[in-house]
């Protein structure tokens, strides 16, 4: 039974105020300085990377498993279990593996583990993580493995960062990952009390040695409390029961910032919110109408009211996180030309569009959203804005997530009579912001192109950009693709995502926000990125 957290509150109750004063110096959820209490907004559903489709599970085992290479806070690829990844030719990459690494169950890490990890993705929900590019792997010796791709794949290194390495025994059946994750990471799985907590403990035999970062993680235990209700999470943070809260409600951020005991850290994330148009339904089949609606989305007001002033409007799909593939200037240009809030111009466009179609406004339609708080709010503001004009009579429908997915991902989503409010999470590679949403082959139900947008030119550009390793050529193609997509306006981009964390100032030191949600807790110990966290004080 791990020691339960001693907090100032409990001490006051059981010991008496006088003696508690002496311990006030290291106050916080974990007075002894070696436990960090963080939170998860949902229960962990699986420990197996091939099954984990929810970000919560991925966050939870993120410190237990390690990939061959990791992507740091700026998007650079850093060696982790692999010491080098060298290209042999268009389709072959040679990976040199680190020596002297052991899994938490004591077995040695070798190339066969890597091959087994890749192979076991077949037929699982996360199959596309690997089989999008993987063809075969050849084990040359214990520390070298050659990976063969099915096609040239530009984001290969980045993709390796998303494949946690598991022991070979998991594939042969000798090890059942349902009982707990077994990896090579700085933390080992300790316990999971469903709906209550998930705990990992420091791995004393972690391979990292000699560098700016301590050899072993400074924090001994990381306990994730599972708190679903956001207001409870906030109350727990303010009350000192937890040290780190993820994604506090944006309403609360302003108040939290004023509290000295709490630090709020926000970071531009990879992803955006958008309004998807059903391209097969009038009037959304008309480009002028689509652009008109885009120009009525009150992005600045949304950022102010819904997101507490945090974040920036989105006018194109690729997040500014990828500074190599987009720029502020480009975004401004896209905004000016096609998307920026401009009721005057919107009116002209809608006039022209409705006239072309021969439809008499106001047109009755719906915006569909799921229950995510922020999304519901910005959808309301869009609805209100559209209703203020004479062109639309919009109502808002909210569905719980699964019902919503089955509607949004239904094969005939492009024929629905509703605009869809949606969020999208991208990654470190530009392809992740475009392909699944705008490639013709990814139309629902295959994946996520709910608008059924199909443009041969864009398809070609995306294909070329994916299969060439020349960064300049890729940049050029993605720019062209973005221009085309924004001009065609199958969706109205609303805002680029941000990630916000709030933590107790005296209890957490050195923590940084990772731009991608699934890597939220990376900063707890990431020697390959030169980052680590301590529990401050004490």
């Amino acid at each position, binding site marked *: 039974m791990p020691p339960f957290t001693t907090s100032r509150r409990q001490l006051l109750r059981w010991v008496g105020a006088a003696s508690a004063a002496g311990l006030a110096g290291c106050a916080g959820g974990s007075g002894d300085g070696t436990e960090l209490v963080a939170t998860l907004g949902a229960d962990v559903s699986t420990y197996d990377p091939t099954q984990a489709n929810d970000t919560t599970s991925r966050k939870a085992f993120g410190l237990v498993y390690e990939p061959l290479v990791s992507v740091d806070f700026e998007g650079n690829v850093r060696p982790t279990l692999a010491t080098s990844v060298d290209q042999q030719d268009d389709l072959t990459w040679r990976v040199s593996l680190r020596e002297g690494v052991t899994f938490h169950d004591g077995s040695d890490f070798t190339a066969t583990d890597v091959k087994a990890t890749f192979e076991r993705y077949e037929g699982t929900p996360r199959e596309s993580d690997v089989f999008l590019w993987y063809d075969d792997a050849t084990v040359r010796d214990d520390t070298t493995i050659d990976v063969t791709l099915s096609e040239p794949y530009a984001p290969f290194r980045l993709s390796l960062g998303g494949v946690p390495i598991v022991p070979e025994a998991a594939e042969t059946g000798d090890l059942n990952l349902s009982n707990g994750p077994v990896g090579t990471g700085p933390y080992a799985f300790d316990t999971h009390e469903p709906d209550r907590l998930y705990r990992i403990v420091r791995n004393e035999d972690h391979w990292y040695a000699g560098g700016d970062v301590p050899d072993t993680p400074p924090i001994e235990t990381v306990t994730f409390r599972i708190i679903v209700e956001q207001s409870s999470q906030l109350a727990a943070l303010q009350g000192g029961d937890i040290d780190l809260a993820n994604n506090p409600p944006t309403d*609360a951020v302003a108040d939290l910032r004023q509290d000295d005991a709490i630090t709020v850290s926000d970071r531009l994330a990879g992803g955006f919110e958008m309004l998807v148009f059903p391209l097969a339904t009038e009037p959304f089949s008309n480009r002028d109408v689509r652009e008109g609606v885009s120009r009525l989305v009150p992005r600045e007001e949304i950022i102010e*009211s819904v997101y507490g002033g945090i974040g920036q409007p989105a006018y194109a799909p690729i997040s500014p996180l990828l500074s190599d593939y987009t720029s502020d200037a480009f975004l401004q240009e896209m905004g000016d030309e096609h998307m920026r809030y401009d009721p005057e111009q919107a009116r002209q466009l809608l006039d022209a569009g409705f006239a072309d179609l021969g439809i008499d406004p106001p047109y009755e339609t719906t915006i569909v959203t799921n229950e995510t708080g922020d999304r519901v709010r910005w959808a*309301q503001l869009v609805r*209100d804005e559209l209703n203020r004009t004479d062109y639309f009579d919009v109502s808002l429908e909210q569905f719980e997530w699964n019902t919503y997915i089955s509607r949004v991902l239904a094969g005939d989503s492009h024929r629905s009579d509703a605009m869809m409010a949606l969020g999208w999470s991208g990654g470190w590679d530009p392809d992740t912001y475009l392909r699944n949403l705008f490639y013709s082959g990814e139309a629902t139900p295959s994946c996520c192109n709910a608008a059924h947008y199909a443009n041969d030119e864009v398809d070609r550009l995306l294909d070329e950009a994916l299969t060439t390793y020349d960064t300049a050529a890729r940049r050029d193609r993605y720019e062209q693709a973005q221009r085309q997509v924004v001009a065609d306006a199958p969706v109205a981009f609303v805002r680029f995502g941000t990630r916000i964390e709030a933590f107790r100032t005296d209890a957490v030191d050195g923590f940084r926000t990772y731009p991608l949600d699934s890597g939220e807790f990376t900063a707890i110990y990431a020697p390959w990125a030169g980052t680590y966290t301590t529990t401050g004080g004490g």
Partner: protein
Amino acid sequence: MPRNPLDGRGRLRVRGFESDDADGDAEAAAATTPTTDRWRRAWTRFRRDHAAVAGLAVIAVMALLAVFARPIEVSGVVVQPVALAPYDPGASGIAPAYRPPSLAHPFGTDWAGRDVFSRVLYGGRYSLSIGVIAVSLALLVGVPLGAVAGYVGGWVDETIMRLVDVLYAFPFLVLAIALVAVFGQGFWKLVGALVAVGWIGYARLIRGEVLGVSERDYVLAARALGASDRRILRRHVVPNAIAPVIVQATLNVGTVVLSAAALGFLGLGLQPGTAEWGSMLSAGRDTLVGGEWWVTVFPGLAVFLFVLSINLVGDGVRDALDPDADTDTYREAR
């Protein structure tokens, strides 16, 4: 007091002293007088319960406020022109967001810059109508079914009661979540979910009452006289059995409003942004911790006041109709 139908034969009868009409129809006589007397007596008793009268007054005021909050239009004709609410409850951005209560905005503003006071006034429409409509519909379904089950008995009774048992055993929230997920959000869907669960209480209650009443003399008498079953049900059984059902229904209006609020809390209420008290409570719950208390406290008080008043009225009705009520009559109370 029911009269023996054989009484009038071969005997001198002096008429004019009974308060009932001197019609040879025994059942009619038995039905009308005690009933009208009873309702009148009940009203007098009700008036004596100060708390209940206060509750009724509060409800009346809330209803008036709800009706006169904003103009009502029926097919383009303005039926009610008064607007007590100073702002459009749905209009966002009319004021800065999250302003504390002030003269201009007595209840402050919410995240979208909407006036909370107007929303609370207007929100009464939803809560009142959901409560009244859901309970009325549930009565319309439950009372006939329960009455028939109790009176007819046999396999009809068995089937209906098994259905009641099955629904009774089913957790209400599961049913509500499922129904709303299937049919989507919206006023009528919410009402539908509440009715689907609500009718069973009344069915059971009235069946019990009917079973008790059916054995009474005047019903046996009416049947002996050849009155049809339906007539008996309508004119004898139901009116006498209805009292506990009325009490239950009144109390349930409050329960329904609370359930609607709970559904709103789970995200299953009305269209987002609707000025319904429960939805407002749920939408603003993060602000409780943040310190913008006015966003939830005022809608919460509204719900509280409404349900408390309706419960006081319900209690008053119960005491008035049946001042020596047994515990068992209200066994089904939730």
